[in-house]
């Protein structure tokens, strides 16, 4: 397999392989050129992809056939050397490591070094802590304030007729789009179907009830609503919340209700009575800490 002999004879298998390689390289040349022309003419993604595949594939096939059939296929054997374990060298290493370098048996210094490193760690932590603000009150509060009117994003305050029964809209405090986590779902239900308890019942006037839109499982917006069975569904992990009973989780991995925004009617608009009573969004370890 070392090319033509002195008389120019090439065995048929080699000749076949050569022709294959030539054909493959030919494909590469043609498709590469065609690709360039296609590009100059404006390009088209699928054709570009096919031509590029042919170009690269031709080169690959040609080179592989060349290597497999036209190069020496001699199997070689090479010895392995044992990895490590040379006793003499290990002993020498041991000597080097244990040479008294003022390191061992100075426990006080080593302990002090440990303390110093802890201090260094504290110093190096400062750029890390600058990466973000302290969590603070942010997780416990949204931009809803008492008296804020419910409005569609960037729009007018919502009127009751904007919502037929069985409908819902995403609302924010009027004129304040600053807090995306204030996103709230205002849903209208037949008033007699609502089964809220205590204060919550008073916070949902005439069958209009408002819940936080952020899922309490992993924070995705709870964007799906089955009006016929009054279920809000989160598309991320399929948690379902029952609107009639205060958005209690009835299916899927969420374990906490969607916080209910207390609202009241004020003439032709809706107004928040206050912020959400519990943190919106995904649960965290000390939600009572607010």
């Amino acid at each position, binding site marked *: 397999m070392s090319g033509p002999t002195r008389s120019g004879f090439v065995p048929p298998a080699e000749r076949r392989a050569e022709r294959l390689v030539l054909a493959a390289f030919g494909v590469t040349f043609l498709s590469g050129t065609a690709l360039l022309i296609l*590009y100059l003419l404006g390009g088209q993604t699928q054709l*570009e992809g096919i031509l590029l595949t042919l170009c690269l594939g031709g080169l690959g096939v040609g080179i592989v056939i060349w290597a497999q059939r036209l190069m020496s296929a001699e199997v070689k054997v090479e010895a392995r050397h044992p990895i490590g374990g040379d006793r003499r060298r290990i002993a020498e290493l041991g000597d080097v490591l244990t040479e008294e370098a003022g390191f061992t048996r100075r426990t006080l210094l080593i302990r002090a070094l440990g303390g110093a490193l802890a201090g260094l760690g504290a110093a190096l932590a400062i750029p890390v802590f600058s*990466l973000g603000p302290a969590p603070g009150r942010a997780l416990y509060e949204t931009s809803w304030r008492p008296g804020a009117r419910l409005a569609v994003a960037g729009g007018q305050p919502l009127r009751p007729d904007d919502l037929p029964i069985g409908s819902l809209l995403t609302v924010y405090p009027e004129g304040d789009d600053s807090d995306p986590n204030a996103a709230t779902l205002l849903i209208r239900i037949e008033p007699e179907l609502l089964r809220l308890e205590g204060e919550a019942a008073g916070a949902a006037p005439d069958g209009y009830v408002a819940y936080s839109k952020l899922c309490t499982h992993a924070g995705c917006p709870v964007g799906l609503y089955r009006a016929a069975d009054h279920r809000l569904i989160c598309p991320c992990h399929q948690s379902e919340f029952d609107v009639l009973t205060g958005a209690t989780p009835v299916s899927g*991995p969420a*374990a906490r209700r969607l916080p209910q925004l207390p609202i009241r009617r004020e003439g032709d608009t809706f107004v928040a009575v206050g912020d959400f009573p519990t943190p919106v969004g*995904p649960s965290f*370890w000390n939600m009572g800490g607010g």
Partner: protein
Amino acid sequence: MLRRSLRPSPGRGRPPSREERERAAGTADEAPPPTELERLGIWLDRRTGIAGVARTGLRKVFPDHWSFLLGEIALFAFLILVATGTFLTFFYVPSAALVPYEGSYEPLVGHEVSAAFDSVMALSFEVRAGLLMRQIHHWTALVFVGVIVLHLARVFFTGAFRRPRELNWVVGFVLLTLALAEGFTGYSLPDDLLSGTGARIAYSAALSIPFIGPWVASLVFGGEFPTDALISRFFVLHVMLLPGAFFGAIAVHLAFVVFHKHTQYRGGQARETNVVGRSFWPSQVFLSTGLFFLTAAVMALLGGLFQINPVWAYGPFEAAQVSSPAQPDWYVGWLDGALRIFPPFEPTILGVTIPSAFIPGVVLPGILFTIVAVWPFIEARFTRDDREHHLLDRFWEHPGRTATGVTILTIFGILTLAGGNDVIAFYFAAEIEALTNTFRLLTLVVPPLAFAITYRLCRTRRDRADEPDEPFAGRTPGRGGVALRRTAAGGFEDVEP
């Protein structure tokens, strides 16, 4: 050996004549003139001293098997990602600043989008071949992780991770984790509605860690989600920090392979003490080069023919909007599946709430990944085997190991499918809740079953070869006892044991 015709002639003012050259060579017709390649080698050697290393290196023997090429394909996929990614970096704008979209995709014109999203739209519609490059990049990323897993499975089931290669296994595990992180940060860069939702889930997973969760989440994301910092931080991770780590880890990974020499299957003249195969030059170099182009060809095919991540359809990320179905890229699908099927368990213990996303989102992956990472040491504990191994096992020779591997793959497989439960329900007209319960049952029942069945099958196969009854022990390796040594002249000679 330097050919005599090229040795510098001492102290002459003019080049030697043909006659002089022939006299110096000894005979007129000996020693053909050096080839181009030889001349190049000599030129390099006179400037780098590389001849010795090159001679040994180019002669290195590499065992041949198609399954050994999987790691190479992963490497080539990485190179393709770097190449296409570099192109994308020249167009991508890592900024959350709002700009009005003014490109050619009609429905979005005039709408305010982030500069990042705008630049990806421009790449897709305005830059010639931009969409092709974007799609090749994304498809390669999806396939990249798959090839790594195939390679990992090959190494695992053949026992190639045993001494001296345990550390290289750990490096390989690090590479897998880096690939997942690269993929996640990468597909979040277009700032579209789908990937932004995924970023929110990552934030919530960080948030769910008891005690430190709110801090970790705030520091990584730069505040309460959504933040403007997210895009630029993910960009730095995706384009600088993670690739840097990749290059370093790949270098160590390959250095180990060169130093340890590759493992080999039994058969023919293979022994624990040798490597049987073909030499690096020219055979393996050409085969690898060809493999690179073929890998690239497959990626180009996917990138041109199959649409992936149509961000124009999803639209820019807006915090309170969502589209369904909502899944991450497939290689993190198992995490999504775990989050979907884990029951709503959110206890409060001594005033500390354990959020329902914590166990499936943080604890479970932690445990699974740790097992994978330290497996060589776990197995060494069980088998009490710390000999060097260079011959590969057949998978049925180690029933315990094989069964464990199959079990872990089964768990990941079921969880990955569970991640698409709504799409499966839609496609097969099934009910989501029923599917979820089915997946819960499968997760509990199938892995132990898979373990038992695999174990039994392997034991039966192995016992047919009449081996001692030890579940985790393997066959006595090779025929051992014969050592070879290379002579100074480059040949081989026996060494009496």
